[in-house]
């Protein structure tokens, strides 16, 4: 899943949209998807293209939860904390996973192997509690199951 900066041409992404302020979020989303984070160089390029002042682009990049200004880990794990999942104990599942990976809260491990994030509902509430590991839904997940899945990724 995770691609490196070398594979993808940032200019190609920039050229996908007209140079107007209203495309700021589109560009940031595509860059986030391609690189897993938005580097300050990328942000500058986006600003040049759209004509949005850097301070404003920075405000946008920090306001929305899906943007990250720091690189993310090789493996991305989302634990849903939506209401349906919360009632089925997803809070504990997230805590347990983070403890196991040595994280104090959502974030990336020092070795850049894992990033754990929490989300508010993935729209799969009927399968609560749900986690998503590298894009794969894990329906009716439990702490032991999730840890096993994550462990396997680390062993690979």
């Amino acid at each position, binding site marked *: 899943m995770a691609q490196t900066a070398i594979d993808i041409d940032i200019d190609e992404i920039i050229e996908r949209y007209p140079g*107007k*302020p*209203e*495309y*700021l*979020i*589109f560009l*940031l*989303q595509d860059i986030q998807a391609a690189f897993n984070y938005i580097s300050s160089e990328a942000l500058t390029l986006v600003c040049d293209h*759209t004509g*949005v002042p850097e301070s*404003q682009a920075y*405000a*946008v990049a920090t*306001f*929305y*939860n*899906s*943007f990250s200004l720091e690189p993310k880990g090789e493996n991305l794990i989302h634990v849903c*904390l*939506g*209401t*349906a*999942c*919360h*009632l089925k*104990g997803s809070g*504990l599942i997230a*805590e*347990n996973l983070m*403890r*196991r990976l040595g994280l104090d809260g959502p974030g990336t491990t020092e070795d850049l192997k894992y990033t754990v994030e929490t*989300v*508010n*509902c*993935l*729209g*799969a*509430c*009927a*399968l*609560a509690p*749900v986690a998503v590991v590298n894009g794969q*839904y894990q*329906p009716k997940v*439990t*702490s*032991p199951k999730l840890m096993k899945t994550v462990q396997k990724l680390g062993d690979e």
Partner: protein
Amino acid sequence: MQATAKDTAELRLGSLEELEKLRGELRAAEDPNHTRIIVCHGTGCIANGSAGVTEALKAALAAAGEDIAVMPGIKTTGCHGFCSRGPLVIIKPKNIFYQQVKPGDAEEIVQKTIKAGEMVESLLYEHPQTGEKIETTEDIPFYAGQQRVVLANIGQIDPTKIDDALRAGAYAGAAKALTNMEPKQVIEAVINSGLRGRGGAGFPTGIKWNLAAKHEGGQKYVLCNADEGDPGAFMDRSVMEGDPHAVVEGMIIGGYAIGADTGYVYVRAEYPLAIKHLEKALRDARAYGLLGENILGSGFNFDIRINRGAGAFVCGEETALMRSVEGKVGEPVPRPPYPSDKGLFGKPSVLNNVETWANVSRILDKGADWFAGLGTEKSKGTKVFALVGKVNNVGLVEVPMGIKLREIVMEIGGGVPGSDHFKAVQTGGPSGGCLPWQDADLPVDFDSLIAAGSMMGSGGMIVMDDRDCMVDVAKYFLGFLEEESCGKCFPCRLGVPRLRETLNRFSKGQGTVEDIDDLYSLAEAIKAGSLCALGGTAPNAVLSTLRYFRDEYETHILEHRCPAGVCKDLITYSIDPEVCTGCRACARACPQNAITGEKKKPHTIDESLCIRCGMCFESCKFGAVQVQ
């Protein structure tokens, strides 16, 4: 797979007649009595592995080959609502309903059901109370009690094929509006239908349109709110995934009615499949001339663009959503000016929810009177709910407005596992409240829910039982809103965390009864001083749980006990020596090494080491770990 016209060439429909002619041809080309296998490819069933089931069914059919007289087609559809039983396979025309199907079942389905017309007993739905096996969709209480208007085509059509949508009647309402009605008449029809917005507040849709329509000429916009921020709800996701054309059609009608040539759909980024299906629907509609210039020869031009959300709950609020579409920080701005006067890019705009738009399509197709005949006097039509939590039949249900809460939860929902009642039902998402069992006979409509201290919201309906703690639930929603507050106005920025901190103390068994009274005055201040409804409704979670479950709050504070066994600081884990087999699963799972015991002998937990992580509880296969 048969190539459809749109995949090969442009087939622009130039008039209502051409549309209806094509529809007629498409319908004639398909024999409704022909056997067809439907596999659910909604997000839920795919997560449960339905793609593998489809492949296996294809292979099994191919292998059976000549043994089958008429080869059945396989159709993949959007969500059937019963995701908790997925993957689902339905065999038409009899509607034989198979649940929790695995790829390994494909062979048996083909051999028994397709070839010999027999049931595969093990895949049938079992009534949770009577244990009776039910064969067809119609007879399953989960479906029998529903009235599907918005969801009518979902699960019937392949959402990626416009021809299939046309067969089911898509774009008939838009065609009628564009070719036979004046914009004014369209608005009148929507007003007369009594449709109220499904996004939360229940504002009359036609009246909102009128406000924007009265600005004559000039650039205007219509928008679709597909941000579906309510955590624990997936109605809009299912509609977009399963019948995207219903949304597109509704927006065409709205654009025509108010005089807008551009529409925007703002979809939350967590819904990739919905985005994919919408994009396909837009492409196909353009190819057929149902979007773009001079739609159906009416002279009306209209097109739709998709914006992906970027993960901010407050962007579901209308003014914030419009800022976000403009590429800005999604903060609400004070109203007035209302979006109907100055909305997106400062132009008159109308924003409606996904389900509202889908209803518009149905209203124009079937008539305002038909719609006004559904539901109650002040809440017309149906409502889709995401029924989740402690209920046997978890899933998406559509019911007429005014139906009793009891019917939804106990009949359609099949009741609460291990209990003859629910403790509470939470509606309205973070802005809503909890309704107790005493309210089981409450009619579910906009006004009754508000009178009972909750609200309709977008349709999340979360059933709770005795193992769910009301203090924890209120704390959960406040924590959610605290995190999602944009921080623009201070009653919300400061008040919500204060409410949450007070509840935090309660959940630790601290605080006093006076603190409860203070919550009320704080709640009033937040309600009065917040700019948008995020802050304005934030206290509801506390107020509604206090209204019905004050004793539970007091038990936390006075007895330092969490009756539901949820609040971490007030519970203890222990192992029942009678049940424990000494398998050591819990001891291996415990991160604290708090569990000791000899192999094959009952184990014990050292409470002083325990951090209440619940790992032991989850890893014990025998149910020996208890929470008190």
